[in-house]
């Protein structure tokens, strides 16, 4: 299958490993991945901070960039959530754009959705010999409703010791600009999330969103816990050879 990668601005700029892993994983599974170079950002930060007018050109760009493709994947529940639930709203009065945005959204998948719902694989042949706990990010869980798809993929990874995260469904406290505008509350939420991660004894905390992992990982690093954050795509892309 020919799959267009929406890398997301955060992974492109700060966490290229997550986007690279998505490419390598899908190619290993026998698919062709293309990266439309005109892509930048879905506009979620603008939309969620109250700048829909500024987000409009970004939505227009995103729609224009991805509408030639039948299947689009992003290694982020949050960005796919924005494409699916916000782009048509931002298009607003521009009914033509709203319809095109809805069409692109219907072909855009978060990585675990693509693997299980579209490609029909639960065992991607990965090998990752570590004790891992999974944090279900809020937008994967409550906007996209990915359910246990990421866990099903992780359970099939060779060598991986999956440990359950207590109070997993509670937000880590990132929330985009929330983490800056309400830094103290965000940090209080993060403190509880980190305590739960440490309680599992895992050496890796994984999730489907680089943004939440940047937040959790930033806290774990500051406290010198030694626990790493690794994007789900990177675990699934790992093999015994790598």
């Amino acid at each position, binding site marked *: 299958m020919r799959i267009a990668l929406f890398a997301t601005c955060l992974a492109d700029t700060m966490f290229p490993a997550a986007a690279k892993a998505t490419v390598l994983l899908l190619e290993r599974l026998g698919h062709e991945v293309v990266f439309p170079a005109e892509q930048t950002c879905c506009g979620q930060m603008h939309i969620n901070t109250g700048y829909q007018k500024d987000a409009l050109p970004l939505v227009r760009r995103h729609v224009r960039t991805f509408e030639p493709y039948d299947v689009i994947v992003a290694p982020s529940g949050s960005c796919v959530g924005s494409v699916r639930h916000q782009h048509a709203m931002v298009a607003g009065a521009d009914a033509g754009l709203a319809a095109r945005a809805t069409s692109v959204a219907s072909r855009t998948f978060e990585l675990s959705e693509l693997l299980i719902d579209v490609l029909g694989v639960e065992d991607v042949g990965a090998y990752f010999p570590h004790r891992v706990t999974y944090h279900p990010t809020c937008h994967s869980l409550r906007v996209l409703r990915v359910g246990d798809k990421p866990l099903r993929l992780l359970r099939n990874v060779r060598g991986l010791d999956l440990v359950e995260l207590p109070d997993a469904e509670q937000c880590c406290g990132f929330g985009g600009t929330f983490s800056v505008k309400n830094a103290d*509350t965000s940090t209080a939420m993060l403190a509880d999330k980190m305590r739960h991660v440490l309680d599992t004894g895992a050496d890796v905390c994984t999730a489907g969103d680089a943004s939440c992992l940047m937040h959790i990982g930033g806290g774990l690093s500051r406290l010198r816990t030694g626990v790493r954050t690794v994007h789900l795509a990177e675990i699934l892309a790992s093999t015994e050879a790598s």
Partner: protein
Amino acid sequence: MTFLGMPARAPRGVGHLRGDESFPVAARKALANSQLRRNLQHATTTIRGKSGRVIAELPDWQELRSAGSALKAYTMARLPELLEQLEENVTAAGGVVHWAADANEANRIVTDLVRQTGERRVIKVKSMATQEIGLNEALEAAGITPVETDLAELIVQLGNDKPSHILVPAIHRNRSEIREIFLKAMPDVDPGLTDDPPVLAAAARRYLRETFLSTKVAVSGANFAIAETGTLAVVESEGNGRMCLTLPETLITVMGIEKLVPKWSDLEVFLQLLPRASTGERMNPYTSMWTGVTPGDGPQAFHLVLLDNGRTAVLADEVGRQALHCIRCSACLNVCPVYERTGGHAYGSVYPGPIGAVLSPQLTGVADNPSLPYASSLCGACFDACPVKIDIPSILVHLRNQAPHPRTEAAVMAAAAYTMDRPKLYASAQRAAKLARIAGRRGRGLPPPLNGWSASRDLPSPPKETFRDWWRSR
């Protein structure tokens, strides 16, 4: 209505919808109070568990939520005619209906009604609407003593405190704090009072019984008003509300205009949703309903004050109007990770938590409550918990788009959007960001406003190359 025909917002200088401080500033103080954090964490976790268990017993919970949502949407679409129908039926049953455009008008109406009875004291049923308009302060200013009879509201009143939760106004207090408040402020309290909950409840009971039997005027709110019959309904757990609704000679009910339901049979849906979502009970313990005046039984004078106070303005907003569907169950507060850590006072309004973050700014106008729509990580737990399916995250995003923006932030956002709409400029900005990061220390000491991030979190080390550089070089 104002002269331009735009519906008025809740006026300033009266009531409790605006805080003295922005949410982040108030939250910082609350977060530093570790006793408060422990009380809240314990209480919200307990209620969440209890509610979750009884909701799981109902196979048709999702259908009930949809029914509740549809009934409220129907009501809002026909609010003017349904309110007139309610007025007609309440009047026909011997009640008197008053229309209050805002808090000042409602306070004046209630104060005048109490004055006309010649009484100097009123007993109160727990009510959000009267807290919203600051009725107690208005009564006190007129020389009338309001006595809260809901146990938690009494704790708040005796402690000279403010409610911090819609359903459990004293959720921020634990039992030893309550004992201290009673010892200090409750008339004729036993000095040997312990902090055993039944002992505390008995002390409140002794004090309140005396008050119930000797007070001739009561003020209540209403959970529901039924347009087709003119019936009012109050749901509560203690029975103290029923004392107020049945013993006095005069009953004055203050009700937000959105509390309406069209038909008697609609209660079938809401009386299943409300107790399970709020207190985690299968059935509400005390459900009191009354229709006007029944000769020889209960209050012989009944007044209904219909309160707007910004609600018509909320109704005019296509996205925001869902907030008027709220049945005040507090489920969204109990699941909110922000509320659980900051408590209710940080929101500066009688409506705290997620519903408060969308309701208070709409009642006052967003410019008067600009920080509340941002008091959420948009995690969406509130939407899932809401028994009438209010899409709180979408309303938050909608209100953020209306909020006044700090000038610097707006400039940064515009510049970011400009850059992100130009892939070549964007790629060079990525490289510049990388160089800036290499020059600085790893993840520490970012300049304001980003220092909020670096106070507790490291930033990741910049990658050697961006994804698009890697892709091009493959």
